[in-house]
């Protein structure tokens, strides 16, 4: 599903050159639930951003769903992200000025779908994460766990093949973290969604199919 070959990412300033990812190759199969672990600053999020086509590697190639994404222009990248990928972030990234339902609808706004269709899909996604009674609430009226569920609903509303989750339980207590993890496991198991999750939590990581460990930008396990 995702093939990374010799990925290298270098951040350059006038005086400093930082190697964030050093020659990483990785194959992720369709329907796999993979977790990425490592100490802070080891390049986990950078790798996830590269897989999510939010960042470009300095060297190497990425193939997703058998497509070479390095040749995509900005428009094609945006369309690809919209249709194939879903994102979950540690800090949720919800728009506080929009109601829950409107937040979940966001990815569908960049597709050609009717308002009715968007509403139905968003409601369905919110039912899936157990928030059918919070459609008209604003994010600021929700708990951390509920906000992350909204973010998951937003990630799955477009029925992407891949979900990229950057420390989805990082801001939650263990009970809420487990709830979120359950939702992700069910998505993977029931819908066959490929999930790549960055985490600091060993317990969460061990619930996934495979664990990749990074250290100083290199793949160590």
């Amino acid at each position, binding site marked *: 599903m995702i093939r990374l070959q010799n990925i290298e990412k270098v951040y350059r300033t006038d005086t400093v050159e930082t190697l964030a990812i050093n020659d990483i190759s990785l194959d992720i199969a369709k329907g796999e639930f993979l977790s990425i672990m490592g100490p802070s600053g080891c390049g986990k*999020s*950078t790798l996830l*951003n590269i897989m*999510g086509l*939010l*960042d470009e590697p300095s060297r190497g190639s990425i193939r997703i769903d058998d497509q070479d994404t390095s040749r995509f222009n*900005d*428009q094609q*990248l*945006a*369309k690809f*992200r*919209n*249709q194939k990928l879903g*994102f979950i*972030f540690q*800090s949720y*990234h919800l*728009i506080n*000025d*929009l109601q829950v339902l*409107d937040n979940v*609808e*966001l*990815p569908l*706004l*960049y*597709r050609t779908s009717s*308002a009715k269709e968007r509403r139905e899909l968003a409601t369905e996604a919110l039912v899936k994460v157990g928030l059918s009674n919070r459609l008209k609430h604003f994010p600021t009226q929700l708990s951390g766990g509920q906000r992350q569920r909204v973010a998951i609903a*937003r990630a799955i509303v*477009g029925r992407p093949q891949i979900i990229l989750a950057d420390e989805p339980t990082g801001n939650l207590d263990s009970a809420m973290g487990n709830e979120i993890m359950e939702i992700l496991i069910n998505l993977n198991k029931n819908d066959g969604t490929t999930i790549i999750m960055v985490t600091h939590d060993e317990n969460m990581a061990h619930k996934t199919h495979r664990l990749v460990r990074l250290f100083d930008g290199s793949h160590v396990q």
Partner: protein
Amino acid sequence: MFRHLFKLIWNKRKHNVLFLSEILVSFLVIFAISSMLVYYYLNYRKPAGFQYEKVWAIGYSNPLKTKDKDTLSAFYDQVKSTLNAVPEIKEVSFSSYNFPYANSNSTTGFEYNGKKYNQVNFYQVDENYDKALSAKVVEGRWFKKEDRVMKNNFTVINTTLKEAIFGSQSAIGKLVGDDKAKIIGVIEDIKTGGDFYPAGYGGYKMLDSASFEWIGTILIQVTDNADAAFESRLSKLLARTIPNSNIAISHLTDLRDSKNSNTVIPVVIASIIAGFLIINVALGLFGVLWYNINQRRGEIGLRRAIGASGNSVAAQLVTESLLLASLSLIVGSFFAIQFPLLNVFDVPSAVYFIALLLSVLFIYILVILCSLYPGRQAAAIHPAIALHEE
């Protein structure tokens, strides 16, 4: 997407108060200035209605102590004959003080068929006035010398007054005014207040013998040979013909320039002040949009992640600004529309409607210009960095 953006704007309306207020104030200022400019432009496009070049106005004071009408009439007929005998003078006409481009006016009002006509400019002239100004009689006839002698209560009105009272019907023979003067002719509008003002309602009456006691203007149309040397000779001739009088010769071209300057200079000053205001507003809008974008880096990063291209992010921000501007324009237009509805300043409604359209267009262009660059900057935000900042 439009509905989504409107919802977003509506939910953030408190944050957008500054933006909304700036647009509203700018719109009202632009509406005021453009109303003025449209009014002046529409008037400017209309013909002057007479030939002002080679027309000189001779101002004099009546030196005769007598109040006897016949003596006065005979004296000024002699003055007219003397001037008519000068080869460089083509036409001579006596006029009241409110001749074209003079700083005097005389207005009256009357009722006709139950409708009031106010601010009717009232001119007292003689039988040569139309020729001296090369004015065109469009219906009926101009005064004849006999009209003075016969004591007929005749009047000539201008086209604006004729159309206001009679529309497309003929005005000839109708009786108007409190003194029931009979209309004998309709003359083309003469813009006496300068190029930027309308002729307004105009009514002309024949000077009678008694008028010579108080009128003080002779309009002369001169030939192309009339130069400064001639003006000097004319001045001496007048001093001899009307002794003990204060004579002043002025050219209608100079008076017209002066009248036009009196209109143009305040407009230029107001436009410069409005220009500075608009520059400040533009900088303010630019700053507000820039600030908003910096406050929304996370949201922009998110939108990029879930499927927005750089161009669609830029387009979204420009559209948001235009929607916000539209809210202010709706409020502003509500106030602006009161001007034609209430007939404020007695200006034609079309002026306000054209000014309204121009102001709306101007504000939209201003908003687009001010939001284009911040929009491009937003499009350039790197999604990975923006999402990490949050």
